[in-house]
């Protein structure tokens, strides 16, 4: 278990995403209000081959929380990383938590193992 401090909760953008550098990795952080739910996924878009997922629009499709890639609009499940259009594609997802108004991410563990 190794939680890393990433940023303050004020650095997140409500109902949108930002990107953080954690241990050399690009991590996209999404923050939903008013529910205050957070998600952390890898920022790399495997279809567009660019680090852009934090800049996608978030929402839900059939009850699954998703982000749509800003390049070609594929949806990724924010909890499992699975691409809705092509289930053989799965991007890394990380556990995330808020601790004393600080955002913490755990890169060692994949979220679906939780």
């Amino acid at each position, binding site marked *: 278990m190794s939680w890393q401090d*990433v*940023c303050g909760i004020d*650095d*997140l*953008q*409500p*109902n*949108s995403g*930002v*990107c*953080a*550098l954690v241990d050399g990795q*690009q991590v996209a*952080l999404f923050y*939903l209000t008013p529910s205050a739910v957070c998600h952390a996924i890898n920022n*790399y878009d495997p279809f*567009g*081959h*660019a*680090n*852009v997922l934090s*800049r*996608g*629009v*978030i*929402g*839900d*499709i*059939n*009850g699954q*929380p*998703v982000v*749509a890639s*800003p*390049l070609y*609009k594929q949806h990724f499940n924010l909890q499992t990383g699975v691409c809705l259009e092509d289930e053989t594609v799965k991007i890394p997802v990380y556990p995330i938590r808020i601790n004393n108004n600080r955002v913490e991410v755990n890169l060692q563990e994949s979220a679906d193992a939780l």
Partner: protein
Amino acid sequence: MSTKKTLVVIGNGMVGQSFLASLVASPIKDDYQIVTFCEEPRAAYDRVHLSEFFSGKTAEDLSMVEPGFFEEHGITIHIGDKASKIYRLAKTVLSEKGVSIAYDKLVFATGSYPFVPPVPGHDRPQCLVYRTIEDLEAMAAAAKTGKVGTVVGGGLLGLEAAKALKDLGLNTHVVQFAPRLMEMQMDDAGGAMLRRKIEELGITVHTGKNTIDITDGKHCANKMVFADGDELETDLVLFSAGIRPRDELARDCALHVGARGGIVIDNQCKTSDPDIYAIGECALWNDKIFGLVAPGYAMARTVVADLAGETASFTGADMSTKLKLMGVDVASIGDVHAKSQGALVYSYQNGDNGIYKRLVVSQDKKQLLGAVLVGDNSGYGTLLQYCLNGIELPENPDALILPHRSDESVGLGVDALPASAQICSCYDVTKGAICSAIEAGCTTMGALKTETKAATGCGGCSALLKSVMDCELTRQGFEVNTDLCEHFAYTRQDLYNLMLVGEIKTFADFLAKHGKGQGCEICKPTIGNILASYWNEHILAPEHLGLQDTNDTFLANMQKDGTYSVVPRITGGEISPDMLIALGQVGKKYKLYTKITGGQRVDLFGARVDQLPHIWKELIDAGFESGHAYGKSLRTVKSCVGSTWCRFGVDDSVGLAIELENRYKGLRSPHKIKFAVSGCTRECAEAQSKDVGIIATENGWNLYVCGNGGMKPRHADLFATGLDKETLIKLIDRFLSFYVRTAGRLQRTSVWMENMEGGLDYLKSVIIDDKLGLGEQLEQQMQHVIDTYQCEWKTTIEDESKLKRFRHFINSDQADDNVVFVEERGQVRPADANERKHFKLLEVA
């Protein structure tokens, strides 16, 4: 012993089989023992699509019989056996192979045979006809040894046969006795147009030729000799000179037949013997033989109903046809020869495109009696419905065939059709039947076809079926088609109205009142856009931020590698040397790739997200503003140099372009909007390809609307002429506001107008004549947007809190190491995958 009666059907062709299919679907099937004689070596197949045999369809593909059909329904079929004798007193049928059956009811469905003129030599080798699969096999065999093929007969079928010969690789001729092709359906002008088109395909047409002899040829197997002394050498001769009903058995047992052949039937399809019916091409009704399948199918249904004791009548049939002959569209409807009393004729001919259209209209100009179309069939569905349903014609009937007042704007909305309107004539499916099927849950074309059989015959009605389906789905309120997405069961237009009525100002409020779930990348930007086009608040205000696509969020267009492009506004394409230098300096300083766009401005590519505010600060200091290249909003107003410099210029197109661009910049709209202004009719600004186009004339400005380049180009329509500037601007204000209010999501003005009921005329009545009394409101709506304009970039760089987002990492100043540039033609470009491997981490900025 069974108590069942026996029903015998002679002939298992298209109509015979359709009769059996209707019969087994009816409860009376249990009353009968069914037997059918089928002369051909296979059960019924689709003769209508016979020619497809040459394009690879097999006999099985063409079969009209579901596998196991006869077994399943206990029908006895005698394949390859011909009924040869009928004893009406003994009520018995005898076959060639010796089968003898006592019948209670008998149905003739013996079809017709191709007429072969009794010319000497007509029975020579390689003299063939076109009716059965065996005929086609014989043609294919003959084509292997021959080089030249000639069709005798220039009617529908003859031309189809000619196409087959051509496809078999033969040098093809058509010999026609009449002075024009398709003399039944065409007038002289239409026939001439058709002839030209067919000759362009490399087929030689001879009209007015009477064949008097066929003998040995010198170079070919045969030689045709004509009455005028001409001769034609040909290997293959294919007779397609009309059909003759197969009434030989009926004659033999003394049923009434017509003077020129055909088994006489009444409205119940009964022959002169009440236990014997005749249907299809062998039957003569009201002195007419119907050489098409649809009337035969109608007769078949009539007989089934009559057997079931229902009152049913066959009352004739529409003989309108639409087809593609050798790639040439041909259609004829109703009274093509204007034989009706007092009929008026309108015709339109375009020699360049090979289009010919003719309308036959009643004396009072209210009813369509007939039509001929060559080269462009697109109006067929609409015209046929006018004709069949007696729908009143528009004031100028010629609008239906003239190109500029296009079919779209005068097209008959399918909702104007009565429920009784026949949509599919092959299977007699009415609009009412289709609507009920939709109501019962058939909401796709596939399901509708299976359920109603519509569009499964000749296929000619599928476009119409589709529009009926779409229209009905909308009318019955099916959500599938119109819902924006799973979160909002509304269209963009609905949402716009909900916003107005409820004074809704945020997405959260929208979701709470009218939606469900969290939203998605469809509804969020759409609602963001609606809010922006009406309230015109800054799109990066905290409550709107998450709604925008990345381009709007970062006020720049994302490129393939995650960098952005920068497009400052260059109104009307006019730019001073100093401004150009400033642009150059910024480009150079940030090492941006620089390109002139198709919209008369400059695009700077390759800016990292953290560079955007710095770049924009410098541009704004130099006097530039946002160009809104990222938004669904006004893009450019293209101009030509106009009267200021150009020797032909009539008015100041640059001045007007700049004024208009400044007026409408920043307006958020359903899709992007493009303008252009040309200084004279030479049209160097290409105004007629824009959403709004303006051309200067001696009498004032001409306004064009709803043009489009892009994926589906559309020429703009002339909207108003000779306008002064004030009126011009008023009309554009109203036009744009109305578009913003009523268009669908991502609908350009062209598509919006094409989908609008009433089309251009309606739009004119709303915008110019102010029919809805909305004019002032629309102008005010625009005035509000104009009054609240802000340069989004200027507001953004002046607000610290908004700048926070413009960093690649929220917790580090590092740049994205995946952005790698290489040089090409003296500028940067993103490295490709291969180059990336070699130049990892090439630092640029």
